[in-house]
């Protein structure tokens, strides 16, 4: 068994601190003790999300394939103990508890201002004690079926996933996090146990806690409740993803006001620190080219092509990386042309140095506050660990970033030809009512 080690890390830029504990059980724990704050937020997360549908451990000879949506299903079911619902346990401490599943992680969390140690005991206990039966799985299929129907009625969700389907041939990032009503019908209690024992291994998890808490107290609870795990040397596999898009455009129909669009540009995926650095370079480049201070944004507004919902973002993870422009427009095709022309021109001329300084300063202002609030601190530490970087790397990258770095990313990593446009509009706004895809 390994020994527990403990390190205090201080940001040379902001002076913020956290404690990292590499626990003997295999779990990595981050604690940020925040003086003057009343609340505590704790996140206990597994590196397991909707994209992890094919995997194997040191004990398996072949890769195991599981139904789409099973990570999310497992998250729902873990909230039920053998004898009670987990919410009824938290009810006694007053904590507000929740959980969520994303593409690459499942997180269980609570926030509270009193009794954080009792709530932490509940969190560590229930996540380590699964209880699934055929009956409880069948009941959950009904509830999650309702959730799937609800998200299908969300035009923002549909336009986003239609974009991902237009960008990715085979990477499971294109799959809805909750799966489909058909795929969740294949889930059994046995499959849930298999996924649980594979991914909810402490070597594949992190505990992040911030606010009104003490590292010593957290460690004492961890020592008492964490069950040491064998490192299963988990391997994930993803189908090969070609660097091309599936379709140039997808139109879908739903009751909406103005048509909504997502324009996605596919880039090469990266991992760890390189992924974070590329993400920040892409972010700064897109802010310079398309945020509210840019000539592009002003001209799109003045020409009535977009409204104030227009924005850009970076969406990246294990095996995927894309830049997204989204908003509302009656003429998303022209918006696409303008964006792609702006990118091409900037690739030739380089980005404006003054705008670069301003955007970098603005980004610094935001990131300097990341450890200043309880929830953002807890989330920053969790996300950094699951993404294979350190919590203060983001601030370090933005501090050291040069205009040349960003121009290099823009020229070498972004190709407007690798783009897809997804639009959701009212059926009355077009003649057809079935989703259309233009290859």
């Amino acid at each position, binding site marked *: 068994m390994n020994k527990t080690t403990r390190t205090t890390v201080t940001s040379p830029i*902001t002076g913020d601190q956290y404690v990292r504990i590499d626990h003997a059980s295999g779990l990595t724990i981050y604690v940020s003790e925040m003086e*003057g*704050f*009343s*609340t505590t937020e704790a996140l206990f997360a597994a590196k397991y999300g909707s994209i992890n549908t094919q995997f194997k451990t040191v004990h398996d000879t072949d890769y195991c394939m599981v139904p789409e949506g099973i990570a999310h299903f497992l998250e729902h079911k873990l909230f039920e103990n053998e004898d009670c*619902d987990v*919410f*009824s346990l*938290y*009810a*006694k*401490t*007053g904590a*507000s*508890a929740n959980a969520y599943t994303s593409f690459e992680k499942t997180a269980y969390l609570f*926030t*509270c201002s*009193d*009794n954080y140690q009792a709530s932490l005991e509940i969190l560590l206990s229930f996540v380590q004690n699964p209880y699934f039966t055929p009956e409880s799985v069948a*009941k959950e299929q009904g*509830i*999650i079926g*309702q*959730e799937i*129907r*609800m998200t299908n*009625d*969300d*035009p923002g969700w549909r336009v986003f996933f239609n974009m991902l389907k237009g960008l990715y041939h085979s990477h499971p990032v294109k799959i809805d996090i909750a799966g489909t009503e058909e795929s969740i019908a294949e889930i059994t209690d046995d499959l849930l146990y298999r996924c649980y024992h594979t991914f909810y291994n402490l070597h594949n998890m992190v505990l992040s806690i911030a*606010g009104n808490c003490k590292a010593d107290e957290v460690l004492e609870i961890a020592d008492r409740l964490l069950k040491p795990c064998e490192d299963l040397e988990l391997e994930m596999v993803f189908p090969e993803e070609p660097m091309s898009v599936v379709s140039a455009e997808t139109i879908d129909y*739903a*009751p*909406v*006001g*103005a048509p*909504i669009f997502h324009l996605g540009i596919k880039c090469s995926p990266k991992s760890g620190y390189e992924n974070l650095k590329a993400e920040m370079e892409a972010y700064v480049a897109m802010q310079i080219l398309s945020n*509210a*201070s840019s*000539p592009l944004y*002003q001209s799109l*507004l*003045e020409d009535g092509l977009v*409204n*104030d*919902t227009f924005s850009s973002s970076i969406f990246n993870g294990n095996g995927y990386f894309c830049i997204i422009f989204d908003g*509302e427009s009656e003429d998303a095709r022209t918006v696409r042309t303008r964006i792609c022309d702006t990118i091409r021109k900037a690739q030739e001329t380089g980005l404006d140095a003054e*705008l670069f300084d301003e*955007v970098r*300063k*603005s*980004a*610094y*202002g*935001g990131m*300097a*506050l990341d450890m*200043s*609030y*309880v929830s953002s601190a807890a989330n920053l530490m969790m996300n950094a660990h699951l993404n294979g970087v350190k919590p203060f790397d983001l601030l370090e990258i933005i501090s050291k970033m040069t205009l040349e770095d960003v121009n290099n990313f823009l020229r070498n990593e972004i190709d407007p030809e690798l783009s897809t446009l997804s639009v959701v509009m009212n*059926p009355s706004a077009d003649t057809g009512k079935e989703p259309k895809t233009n290859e």
Partner: protein
Amino acid sequence: MSAFYKTAQITDTIRFHEIIDPKFKTNTIKLQLMLPLDPKRTAAYALATSLLFTSTGKYPSIAAMSRKMNRLYGARASVDTGKMGDFQIFTMTFSALANPYALEGEDILGELLQILEDCLFDPNVENGGFSETEYNIKTKDLLDTIDAEINNKRGYAIRQAARLAYQGEPAFHSCYGTREDVLALTPQITYEAYQELLRTASIEIYFVGAESQPRIVPFLSRIFAQVQRVSETTPFSNTPSPLKTEPEIRTEQMNVAQCKMAMVFKTDYTDFYTINLMNFLFSVTPFSLLFTNVREKLSLCYYCSGSYNESKQALFVDCGIEKSNIQKAKDEILHQLEAVQKGDFSDELLENARISIVNALHGIGDTPSSYIRWYFSELTRGSSKTPQEAAETYQAVTREMIMEAARAFRLDCIYIMEANGEEDAVNE
């Protein structure tokens, strides 16, 4: 130094609230402008306030304004238009990194105050109205906001239920106005609305930062001296919505996969703290009667929860549901309300609801916005309790008080969004 809260009067009708808490690294200034919701003026006020924040005389475009904010380490100046009961409310927020964290020693707060003054008193004006270019951009934004109401089906269903509940009352109307209202405006009419708003609205100003800033009160006194304010503004007040003689049910057909149902209950019971505790055990928490019975035991829907509109004394319960389960869910929601009315709930549930509220109260003050939300909501209910005092009030609420509060609720109306078919919307 520990946190403290104090108030000062800027003018007879403008009040300043200072909340100092040394743990914060930002300075936040929030102005709450309130006036009775007048459907003839809502669109003009909504458009006018949005125009104040995207350009000024000094920064005459969205791009110029945005670049200035970027240079101030991503400072924020924004406005939200909302509705509280029969009042239209504009929340103007200015926030930025505090001076000690500036890399080059800039006086960020000084610049932020200057931006506040520019936004409120140096609008981007030409020919006696707002700049036409900016006016056209913000008009489109407002029209698209009105049209986009339908995008979020849950929010749309709740708003439709509110329209059904508040027929004939100011709260029936949207805080943005209608398309027709917006299209009837001009840059000049909108500019006049801006001037009228600054003259007539009740104004509460909040500052949250790590240190007291003696320059703010004189600054606010100076800038508001530029306005010929009316001698009396209409203070915010609750306006309970009258109960219909018979519950009204309105069904709207829509091309959706999941039906929505929103039920509205009204009350003449006025003790907010008792109602809030009752609602926590009835519909708010994940251990509430609705969550445990409607969702968990009967698996009828993914969500089923309630929220209380204090200013209209109306409780909204909404759920997303299969068409075939609508009646079953409705019956169960009514059954659970009846259970609270009869006291058919455990002491444990009551205590857990109380612990949950008190826990949340103890967390107020961990963000600037939580401080402001708390003190503003206390002010609008005519109270001035601290979170600790409110916690003590909740401790004194008894089972009998909960039952009495629950018994005062009556079903007023139900809005149902049904999957597929013809439309029968509640139009303004």
